[in-house]
């Protein structure tokens, strides 16, 4: 069991949209903002590209947490990708928590290209939540 290993660090997958959140992460780096090194970033064209399977596959195959981040409402490069995504995410998050998955394993946020500081804060918060929950146990492929 992973819990028995001292100094456990969570693995968090962050799906960032190409136009806002990924650029926000880039800005955080360029600006030398510090944030926990627990995230593995996957760049996607738009938060609307996220298939719920991406999230479940991450949890099944070793991620302790998943973050999806896109452009703020109204800022989507494709005009409405994030609006459509928001409806999907609302239902998915509720469904997962209803089924008993811990609150905080799967999170969604908006980060724009100019919010490097906010990106660092979001990652810090997600990492802190996942650390408090401990390693993923549910849905994990044995």
């Amino acid at each position: 069991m992973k819990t028995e290993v001292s100094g456990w660090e969570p693995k968090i997958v962050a799906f960032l949209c190409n136009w806002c959140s990924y650029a926000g992460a880039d800005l955080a780096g360029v600006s030398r903002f510090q944030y926990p090194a627990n995230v593995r970033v996957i760049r996607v064209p738009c938060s609307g590209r996220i298939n719920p399977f991406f999230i479940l596959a991450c949890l099944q195959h070793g991620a302790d947490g998943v973050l999806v981040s896109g452009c703020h409402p109204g800022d989507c490069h494709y005009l409405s990708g994030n609006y459509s995504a928001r409806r999907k995410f609302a239902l998915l998050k509720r469904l997962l928590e209803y089924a008993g998955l811990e609150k905080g394993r799967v999170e969604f946020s908006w980060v724009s290209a100019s919010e490097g500081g906010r990106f660092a804060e979001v990652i810090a918060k997600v990492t802190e939540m996942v650390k408090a929950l401990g390693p993923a146990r549910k849905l994990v492929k044995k």
Partner: protein
Amino acid sequence: MPDLSAKIREVVQKMLREQEVELVIGFEQGSMPLHSTPCFIRNEEDAQRLVWNSFCDNNLAKYLVKRPEKVAIVAKGCDTRAIVELIKEKQVPRDQVVIIGIPCQGMVDRRRIEAELELNEILEYEEQDNKLTLKGDGFTKTVNRDEYLYPCCQACPHKNPTTYDILIGDMVAEQAPDQYPDIAEFEAKPPEERWQYISGEVNKCIRCYACRNACPLCYCKECFVDKTHPQWIGKTTDTNDTFIFHLMRAFHLAGRCVECGACERACPMEVDIRKLNRKLAADVKELFGYEAGTSLDQIAPLATFRPDDPEEFMLGV
């Protein structure tokens, strides 16, 4: 429940005689008592086979997709809801289907009758108003049909057809809108208990996909469970695979599930499938004000958006 069989036959015969449609989908008596089975009628004489009783539980909308000919379909409330969704999803052209709407008084759960009454094999039955008389070797028992309805029929707020071309029978009184009390009650339990319950349910699953095959809204050419490139979920019956299968099966029906209960009736392992489907239906109603299959005009909830959609679930920093 009034016997509408004669009336249905009459209407169907006329339709076939006048070549208004080529095919009629309805119910006929099954090979065993307490079973009615879908049937496909193409000529006038065969229309005599059509029946209507308390066991017409299949959702016939399942048979409408990819029909080359013009079809008439015998449809109760939930069937018409499924047809509405199929029309909206452009799977069934509206002008290619004649809906023979029938107000429904709920269908009877034969599994429950057999289990709860502990009778020997039922060989015959008769139905009059809301009384069911069951006969077998050395016994005759009369029960009230309304006490043995399927769970989905008990809470059903759309017993009457939501859309139809021909109506047979009188409209029945509708119940109050479903407030999903069972879902609220389940949600009030601690997360770990919910996890244990659903894990237990999905653990029964043998991945036969009968639920998918029976669902009137599952018509994808290639289902996600059959996909191998990429293979989204493993093919095993391990809890993590079956759990993800059931989550995603339900999610694919978000805002589309008409709660006909076909999945649960088809399930050989009696998995509590509707526990997930009803949660999504409740959320879609609460968040987006949409109820599947009730209107031909309202856009499907996941095909549209409002700029002010709720987003209190998003991470605030």
